[in-house]
């Protein structure tokens, strides 16, 4: 969990790059870029949760 989120974030970036390369029409490109960003944000949330210190 601690590192899973950090591994997911580059995958989101690759999805963003794929959107640039594979799609020329702006709406579809924008949708896939947002998908990539959403994956990155989810990875960040998982990483944040995994790094929460033990209370006390």
């Amino acid at each position, binding site marked *: 969990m601690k590192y899973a989120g950090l591994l997911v974030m580059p995958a989101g970036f690759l999805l963003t*790059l794929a959107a640039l390369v594979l799609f020329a029409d702006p709406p579809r490109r924008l949708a896939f870029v947002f998908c990539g*960003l959403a994956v990155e944000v989810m990875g960040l949330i998982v990483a944040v949760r995994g790094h929460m210190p033990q209370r006390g």
Partner: protein
Amino acid sequence: MNPMPPMTPAPAAAMSDVAIAVTLVLLLLAPLAIAGLTLINTGLGRSRSAAQAMLGSLFLGAVAAVVFAIAGAGFAGLPGNWAVVLHAYGKTWSILGLGGFFLHGLGSATPQAQLGLLFEILAVVMAVLVPWGSGADRWRLAAGGASAVVLAGLVFPLAAHWIWGGGWLAALGTNFSLGAGFLDGGGAATVHALGGLSALALVWIAGPRRGKFPREGLSTAIPGHNAVYVQFGCLLALVGWLAWNAASAILWLHAPLTALPGTAINTLLSAAGALVATFTVTRARFGKPDASLCANGWMAGLVASCAYAGLATPAESLFAGAVAGIFTPLLVEGLELALSIDDPSGAVTVHGAAGLWGLLAAGFFAPQPGQMLAQLVGVAALLGVIFPLIYLLYALLNRVVAFRVDPDGERMGMDLHELGGGAYPEFVIHRDESYR
């Protein structure tokens, strides 16, 4: 992948002598932003770590400048220099600069290139100081210096090449018709988002200050030791930022000199809007305005303005600054209370989140079609490549040079433990503070 001169956009017309002189004067004022950040970091820490915080700022800045001059500047490159280029999908992706190590060729470079290099040296010094504030009271000087080597030698140059050195983010406009490519005139990405993300990696790896998160109840408040340092740092930072954003508009956005008053007005309005918003939010939430959170809001407005000061209208700058000022106190509080992130200087929010917000706001405000998409791709690169890279390098570094001071040192205070003397030798430290 092969080394070759990258196919970058044609460089802008050569700067006039007047523009060169004005830019140089502005860059000589820009270190006031670094001085302001140093004072803020010190004031938000504890009195028993104040000397270490100040010396650490100088030390990290010095290490970063030396490492960047030796290696980083070569990796950052400038448009037209040699670079590692990837040819894929019919496009040219410039990944990393290759040339100018040890500042080779600086003497024969154009004044514009020399000014760009000076700007980047100041930018890398600023970038390494951002996480230093987050590691207050527990981050060792040696580890801070090692992190400065990593940031100035590889991470910052990588981002700087992508954005300022004719790299693939700068070429999004020519390669994919996305506006003018990724726009980051003042370093909202290369300096602040990068610094804020490295601060997040640091606080995860170093852990919270001792006693910050007790077993039960809310987190322990550890207020900064000198609000005057913090507020004066904000004023110093304003002067530096006005010069910084104006210089960056000339260097990276190729703005004419006549655009500089507008850039300065946008910078000031962004900070002012942010402070008014933070003042209002903290007064509404706590009954009284909070001095350190208001300082954080002011800085968040300045940080966000780095991205759009050269592009936006005054009204847009005021709006974007106000948005930064609204989310800053809420996010600082949320990160601490909900996610147990111990960030004494608030750098994760003030530099990381506000920098990312500024980049997105620049996409909204820029007139070119497709600019928003270019900004989104840049943000994705920061979150998906730069942040994991920083975390990986910090985690490896932590195995070689332990980030966190030992418990006795933390109890004693970083000044006594690392420097052998306190910042305020005439102060008496209470027993309950020494052994809490």
